[in-house]
């Protein structure tokens, strides 16, 4: 493996008493898409901000593109593109001016900047909107423009904080396609998301964070297989059904289970077989569903089903 694009050793960040990031370690291989999953408040955004210099590293070592995130902020940022969670385009400027202004922040010559802006407007399918004001754009267009803006500095590493939150399915697809094109160019992508489908689709590797720690790391498919298995049997239990005894009766045939209200999840490699073996007289159910295990199951298993605020 070549030198990692990002390497974290025991990285810690506190805000007063609260520990936002609690001694995390990870390495991001260059050229891949690396995901950070986790509930709200897990420390994903703080980790991203430490990488792009908007949060300081309290303890540990964070190396970005071979440079120390504490001391070489300016140099790191010159090779980085950032797509923030919040849409912070410059509303006083047009679409094209937003890109040209970003080029100035990178010290790019005006001629070169004009060419790159035209190219990136095409990349984000906004060529015919270049002279419009920002507030006339749809949410999806703004998001694509944010991605283009992040590319003005011709970055080696692009950090995306929840790039598709709040978008409709078509707009999300357009963003995914843009990210696919980027990865094919060899740009390393770092993204946080709540959407498991997005993580499964985009990420080569990912970490799941909870309460400031990394609780699991791996390739999406491997994580599903090791934490959940191939399939899930989702049972909606009747009032009289004893979930504990039901699980006991299947001992050895399932890899695990989760109960949330009256819904029981049974994880197994062959969920159909489990369903057939189940004694429906003793354990009455309202409904039963066999489906493929997903990253969502892994996520909920590892970070719990209760609401996080």
């Amino acid at each position, binding site marked *: 493996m070549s030198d990692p694009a990002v390497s974290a050793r025991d990285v810690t960040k506190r805000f007063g008493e609260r520990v936002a990031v609690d001694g995390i370690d990870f390495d991001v291989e260059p050229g891949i898409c690396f995901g950070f999953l986790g509930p709200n408040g897990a420390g994903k955004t703080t980790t991203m901000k430490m990488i792009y210099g908007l949060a300081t590293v309290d303890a540990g070592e964070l190396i970005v593109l071979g440079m120390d995130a504490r001391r070489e902020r300016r140099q790191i940022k010159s090779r980085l593109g950032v797509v923030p969670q*919040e849409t*912070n385009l410059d*509303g*006083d400027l047009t679409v094209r001016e937003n890109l040209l202004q970003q080029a100035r922040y990178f*010290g790019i010559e005006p001629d070169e900047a004009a060419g790159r802006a035209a190219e990136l407007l095409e990349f984000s399918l906004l060529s015919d909107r270049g002279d419009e004001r920002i507030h006339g754009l749809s949410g999806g267009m703004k998001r694509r423009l944010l991605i283009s803006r992040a590319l003005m500095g011709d970055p080696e590493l692009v950090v995306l904080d929840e790039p598709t939150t709040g978008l409709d399915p078509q707009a999300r697809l357009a963003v995914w396609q843009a990210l696919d094109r980027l990865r094919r160019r060899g740009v390393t992508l770092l993204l946080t998301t709540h959407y498991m489908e997005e993580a499964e689709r985009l990420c080569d590797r990912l970490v799941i964070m909870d309460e400031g720690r990394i609780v699991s790391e791996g390739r999406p498919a491997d994580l599903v297989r090791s934490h959940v298995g191939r399939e899930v049997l989702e049972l909606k239990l009747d009032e009289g059904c004893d979930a504990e005894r039901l699980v006991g009766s299947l001992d050895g045939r399932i890899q695990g289970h989760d109960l949330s209200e009256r819904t029981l999840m049974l994880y197994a490699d062959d969920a159909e077989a489990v369903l057939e073996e189940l004694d429906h007289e003793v354990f009455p159910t309202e409904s039963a569903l066999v489906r493929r295990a997903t990253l969502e199951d892994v996520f909920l298993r590892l970070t719990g089903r209760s609401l996080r605020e």
Partner: protein
Amino acid sequence: MAMLEERGYAGIGPRVPLREMVPVPRLAGAVWLRNARVFSKLWRGALLPTFLDPFLYLLALGFGLGTYVAHVNGIPYKEFIAPGLIASAAMWSSAFETTYNVYFRMNELRLYDNVLSTPVEVQDVVAGDLAWSATRATIYGIVVLAVIAVFGLVSSWWALLIPPFVVLGAICFSVIGYTFTTLIPKIDLYSYFFTLGITPMFLFSGLFFPFSRLPDWVHVVAWFMPLYHLVEITRGLATGPEFWSVVGNAAWLAVLSALLFSIPVRALRRKLVA
């Protein structure tokens, strides 16, 4: 202190090494250029009040009050106040730019989160914004200078040297306004800045009356106000200067600006880079 922090007061922030205090001119220039670009779209509407302001003051005070107060320090009252209006225009412009406008860019448009994720650092942002504020104030100052010159209220060719000194004064006003912006948690607090800071300075900096017949302490208090020094310079140059007075007042403004520069840099870093 704890109570202030609860209300969002972040404080001045930790000391910053000197090398992180020195802006990169090219990147500060990028920040300046963004503001200039936006101003270039709006300047027609923005400049009109600047033309009207000195008219109104000259009308009310010069021609109204001036009818009763014919001469001050041996010059006609209109000529006494007119050059000071250049200085006060620069002050008002700087005060508005570094308070409401910066606040809007920082907290409503949230531009700085993006800017700081590029090679631009906090000191470049502050320097670029201050340079822009001073530029805008100087444009306003020049407009006022032109207006009073047309009215025949400028009696010395030295007046042509006023603009560079307006730049200096405007930087001083801007650093003060910017400091306030980086320290306040809520926009409502600007009313204190204007009512307790800018307006008293406007009224008591010797723009409208000389200190010669007032008790000494009035003069001492005025000495601490940046506007007093800029009024001394503009009036001096417009009526024929005393060299050392101009140098002394300019030095006062330069030293205060340099001393204060680190405060908004530290406070803004604390606010935006957690």
